[in-house]
């Protein structure tokens, strides 16, 4: 089974970050594999292993020919990668990103499945996978927590507030997976050493037959700090406080 996994390379969330003049994130630093995408990579590797063959191809868009994050995913076991890197894409919005990635996916050859994350750790827009599905004419399944492949179709457990829905879709399909649903493997030392020799096709916008010179529709006008967390509710223990906690949890529909 051939699977394409979208992998975003982002500035290390643990490190300091800067904004550009247009309020987009400064990406002119070492980028790493977005942890959100490591789940998709793991799921793809598992699906390929159970299907007994095929290839996992990574597709990424990042500035400065950045391959550090791609290399991590190659080290985990993916076969090859396509990287779109182009100054013209600096600050691109989510729809433009989806258009670029969709074209890059088409270059990846025959595929049965495209996997992405629900949202990236640095942008949190969360529309790219669905937009790609639309552009490629694929069925889109979101919030996947478990994926099983059967004769020509996939059966997906789609996470909901109450539990999950069971969804079937024909192949090929676009699936976005929820963070934390599998434990991504650590790349082995052998994998890391082999990753350097795996093919990574680095291309620009024109190689995809796209023209982005007209820019994009989205503009960020301002950015504000997230509001500080409101002070929690304090419950004094008068011997009956557990009742208040039970009530609180019931209101939140946790129990």
């Amino acid at each position, binding site marked *: 089974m051939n699977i394409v996994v979208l992998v975003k390379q982002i500035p290390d969330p643990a490190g300091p970050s800067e904004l550009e003049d247009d309020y987009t994130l400064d990406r002119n630093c070492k980028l790493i594999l977005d942890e959100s995408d490591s789940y998709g990579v793991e799921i793809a590797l598992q699906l390929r292993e159970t299907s007994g063959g095929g290839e996992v191809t990574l597709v990424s868009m990042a500035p400065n020919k950045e391959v550090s994050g791609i290399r991590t995913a190659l*080290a985990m076991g993916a076969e090859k990668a396509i990287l779109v890197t182009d100054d013209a894409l600096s600050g691109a919005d989510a729809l433009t990103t989806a258009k670029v990635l969709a074209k890059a996916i088409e270059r990846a050859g025959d595929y049965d499945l495209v996997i992405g994350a629900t949202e990236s750790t640095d942008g949190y827009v969360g529309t790219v996978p669905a937009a790609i599905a639309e552009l490629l004419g694929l069925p889109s399944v979101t919030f996947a927590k478990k994926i099983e492949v059967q004769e020509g179709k996939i059966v997906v457990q789609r996470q909901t507030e109450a539990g999950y829905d069971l969804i079937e879709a024909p192949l090929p399909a676009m699936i976005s997976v929820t963070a934390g649903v599998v434990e991504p493997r*650590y790349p082995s*030392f052998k994998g890391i050493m082999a990753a350097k020799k795996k093919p990574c096709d680095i291309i620009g916008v024109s190689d995809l037959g796209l023209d982005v010179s007209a820019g994009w529709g989205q503009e960020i006008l301002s950015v504000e700090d997230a509001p500080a967390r409101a002070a929690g509710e304090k419950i004094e223990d008068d011997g009956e406080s557990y009742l208040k906690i039970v009530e609180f949890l019931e209101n939140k529909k946790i129990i």
Partner: protein
Amino acid sequence: MPVNPDSTTDEIREELIDTVRRFTARKITPIASDFDAADEYPAEIVAGMKDLGLFGITVPPAYGGLGLDLVTYARVVEELSYGWMSVSGFLNTHFMACFLLMEFGTPEQKTHWLPRLASGEIRAAYSLSEPDAGSDVQAIRTKAMQTGQSYEVNGTKMWLSNGLHAGLVVTLVKTADTDPRHKGMSVLLVEKPPGATHFEGLTVSKKIRKLGYRGLETVEFIFDQHSVPVANLLGGKEGHGFRQMMAAVELGRSNIAARAVGVARRAFDESIRYAQQRKAFGQVIAHHQAIAHKLADMSTKIAAARLLLYDAVQKKDRGERCDLEAGQAKLFASETCWEVVQEAMRIHGGNGYSAEYPIERLYRDAPLMIVGEGTNEIQKNVIAKRLLERHAL
């Protein structure tokens, strides 16, 4: 040791180390204190190390390993020890056994053992010490007498780190009474089922209760007419055992220095964070000069220890003699580590003494580095001897 040339570029090494750092942060650091307190073998960590491929780091690719250099090995040890010193111990005796096979093993012994060691299918222990022989290695009494196609081994070995879980124990024995004593010593490749406490004439007679270095078992072996095939004599010739084991100890010294740097770095990182959080007399304690100076001294000494360590291992990687440098690195790094954890204890005040904080574990782990792979007194003897040779009039 042959090094895989296209695999030790700085860039790849950083990726490898970064992976170990993440593994340590997620899998080791969070559970170290609990497993230490229970003195429990962390089977999951060992399995993870196997998946990463750590047991074959230095074994040549021809035998299924990665053929990486000692600098990379030392960096790995440093990172694992940063999380929990015991975890680096799973590698050390194994690494020394691999070295002995690579350096002195017959072709048959290499093909028989190295692939299984490289994959981590079996792990190895390393046995010199006995109840009455530690620093004075030549005082060992365990005897191996050849009868036909096997040796009959009798005696007691002590301080076998990884002795229970190992499938191979490289063991120094006396095969003849000679003068000088070391000429009658040989290394036997003792095979046993991992985890077994009794195997033919071999008994794992005791698990030693220890101050630190817990989670990893250190045991005592009794050999009672235990039979080892002649084919398991390292290198196929008697009388070379002492020299062989000492060559491995030299590597072990760099290993101890790397551990010491890892533990000291952890103590420093914990301290500099704590010192900026804990307040006393209206300010964070880092702003009291007495504490700030401690941090300055700790960091300076750790940096120096690290430089000595990597100077020694780089020399070894280049194929140069480095016994002096490895001895100096071991001596300085282990003493530095011990000083640094004591300072960390002071900086943490009462919390340093509490098992809620990692400092008390580091404090119990650090002294081993002063004793292991040759005590620091012996280290000074070795260093001084070498210096006097080098500067002979």
